[in-house]
């Protein structure tokens, strides 16, 4: 019989090795899945992981990796701060939408003014919108003890209604021939979150995501606030004993994750997407939860996980179009990745050994 035995302390080696092992296991079992579906598994896995980076059309796909990865990383970094402290913001999607509405709204308010300060104002407005949307569950939790998971999640649906409303009303393009959606910010120079180097996919959102990674790393490893965040997650009672003010921590963690999600939404609406529209949000806020855990709530891990997630998205799309793999199979493949990661995570704290038969 096999038994799990708790390690005296978490294994450092395994905590680094599990993501790699999980990716390998996903490739093996994903390959089996693709084989059962009648596709060549090696070709399918190769398409997903190789094609976007080094394939024939990599010049097109590589910038896409940044465009898709940046919002995931930016949102996941914010979420990870709260998750580390046991504060569960599930509503990043809503905060992302509100960031986009506020950011685009601020930009459009200046239309067609051509000034250097329009874009910075949009950045601030976007962050504010996301912060505001996350401050609602934070305030309700601190004041009335409500569950932030439910409140933040439900506010996603409120945000979606607001998005539809402004697309059809407040922010609707007056020259849009009655179609829903705002003016395209890509054609409004001062408000456009353009690529910093043409053709690289590198826009301000990517830069901000990288800054957020560094910021989170310093915060968690070098600053008292980060220490308190980790302490609260690991041992809430010890945190209280250490003098952590739980209310302040909730406001900070939710507020920060909301602001970062809002920034992601703002950069998206002013750049790759270009306009506020009813179907603007595509689930980055939810996928970022997976990215945060895939990256083991560690800033550098999240950076890598965001890249990996973007890779499976783009690779998955290529596999769909080139090999005719069903979209559901790609989703199963992504699900496997999370599943294996969480499963192998167990090995950080436990070791497997064969149980001796105990005889009296």
């Amino acid at each position, binding site marked *: 019989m096999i038994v799990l*035995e708790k390690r*005296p*302390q*978490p294994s450092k080696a395994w905590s680094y090795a599990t993501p790699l092992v999980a990716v390998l296991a996903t490739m093996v079992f994903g390959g089996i899945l693709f084989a059962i579906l009648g596709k060549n598994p090696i070709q399918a896995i190769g398409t997903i992981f190789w094609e976007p980076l080094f394939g024939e059309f990599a010049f097109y796909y590589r910038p896409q990796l940044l465009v898709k990865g940046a919002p995931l990383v930016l949102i996941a970094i914010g979420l990870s701060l709260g998750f580390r402290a046991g504060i569960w913001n599930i509503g990043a999607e809503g905060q992302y939408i509100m960031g986009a509405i506020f950011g685009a709204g601020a930009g459009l308010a200046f239309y067609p003014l051509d000034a250097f300060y329009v874009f910075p104002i949009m950045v601030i407005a976007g962050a504010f919108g996301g912060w505001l949307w996350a401050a609602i569950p934070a305030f309700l939790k601190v004041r009335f003890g409500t569950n932030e998971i439910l409140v933040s999640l439900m506010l996603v649906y409120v945000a979606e209604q607001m998005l539809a409303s402004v697309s059809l009303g407040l922010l609707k393009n007056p020259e849009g021939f009655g179609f829903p959606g705002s003016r395209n910010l890509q054609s409004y120079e001062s408000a456009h979150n353009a690529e910093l180097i043409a053709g690289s996919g590198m826009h301000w959102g990517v830069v901000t995501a990288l800054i957020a990674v560094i910021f989170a790393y310093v915060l968690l490893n*070098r*600053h*008292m*606030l980060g*220490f308190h965040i*980790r*302490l609260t997650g*690991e*041992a809430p*009672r*010890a*945190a*209280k*004993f*250490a*003098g952590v*003010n739980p209310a302040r921590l909730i406001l900070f963690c939710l507020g920060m994750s909301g602001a970062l999600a809002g920034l992601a939404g703002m950069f998206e609406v002013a750049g790759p997407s270009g306009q506020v529209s009813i179907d603007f949000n595509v689930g980055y806020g939810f996928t970022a939860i997976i990215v945060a855990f895939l990256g083991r709530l560690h800033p550098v891990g999240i950076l890598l996980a965001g890249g990996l997630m973007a890779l499976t998205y783009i690779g998955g799309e290529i596999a769909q179009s080139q090999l005719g793999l069903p979209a559901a199979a790609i989703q199963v493949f992504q699900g496997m990745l999370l599943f294996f990661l969480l499963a192998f995570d167990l090995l950080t704290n436990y070791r497997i050994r064969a149980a001796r038969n*105990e*005889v*009296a």
Partner: protein
Amino acid sequence: MTTPLLSLQGLTKAYPGVVANDQVSFDIGEGEVHALLGENGAGKSTLVKMIYGLVKPDSGTMLLRGQAFAPPEPRAARADGIAMVFQHFSLFDALNVAENIALGMENPPAMGDLAARIREVSETYGLPLDPYRTVGDLSAGERQRVEIIRCLLQDPKLLIMDEPTSVLTPQEVDILFETLNKLRSEGTSILYISHKLEEIRTLCDHATILRLGKNVGECVPAETSARDMAEMMVGSTLQTPERSGREFGEVALDVSGLSVPSPSEFGTALKNVHMTVRKGEVLGVGGVAGNGQDELLGVLSGEITTAPDAIKFNGQPIGKLGPTARRKLGVLTAPEERLGHAAAPDMSLTENALLTGSVREGLENNGFLKWAETKSFAEKIISAFDVRTPGPENAARSLSGGNLQKFVIGREVLQNPDVLVVNQPTWGVDAAAAASIRQAILDLAAKGTAVICISQDLDELMEISDSFAALNEGRLSAPRTTTGLTVDEIGLMMGGAHGMEVAHV
């Protein structure tokens, strides 16, 4: 010669890294009260778990009345007439006594019949208990009665009791001993686990002493001095902490009219607590567990805030201040629960040193952490308090209880507190480590620190404290000078028998 009831022969049980029991052999006769004596970690629990079928021995045999006996699970042990009262009760607060007892039975009879049987058994053995009372309202002593009656209903041949007196006042202990004596006179054998020597001398016929998993001696307790037994148990000469005559300074901490509700649902509210501690004085706070000890520590650490004037430090009201502000002033605390409260289990010792040390040791600079300084602070604690660990990068949970306790106490002591509050400073710690912790507390007091030591170990409090007060249902008795206090007086301060009546049989 008659066959013993239970005969243990060469029992051995090893866990990874430690041999819990090494070739342990002894006999328990019919109608004998047999003491199993040993320090924490000597292997007492593992041994009784083997008898009760919770753990299987690696080798060795047990004979019950001459028949081979190897219970695969507790149910089998119970069927063979072995019952056990655990140190920690497994009762549901919201259910009544009869319901709790029914839950532990294979085929519970109808509630009315069961209640009648509970009444009958409880009267017979001098343990009056109303089967319809809710367990949540019972005192610790009464809860123990529920557990004992649960066992007695099985009509056991061997009753195992694990540290039964650790939750009782002296008066309650007397009641318990009457019951146990009656059981003995009826022929029931009792295996009595304890490290309290005087109890064993009054109650037990034989004693087996375990040290580091080995049977190191047997004796007849009534004919052996407590000191001799203690030395067998520890394996070396015991050192009693030294106290030098001290002068007390002015009042350092003044608590007056302090009343707070408990933050937890089944906690105890503090009611109108008054106490003062002078510089250099050690105030011992006794009392049975669950009478407001955790709340008192929380109030003094700043985890629970109160009216500003309820707590004064050097005349300054601090009731509203949180833990960090109090540490800055010099009021430090060490909670009872090591893992999860005093220390974060999965964090390294360095990080745990930072947990309370950041303010006074200057381990942060505008919020930025000084890891190098923190690490050397952790190393300082480890070397000054002889904490056995490969190094400060190890997780707190990898340390043994005693070592972690030394770390937790050392962390506060080394910060030179003006007031130090400790809760159960030597709980679950071996005798040598306990002595060094007590010595550190006394040394600190000698340097002028006002110390409040909350503990359930009366011997410890008598040893180190200058004055003594007891918590009883959230009320603190008026502190009295320790010298000259009798056990009876202490018992009454702790609430006497908590209203428990004695049935005279």
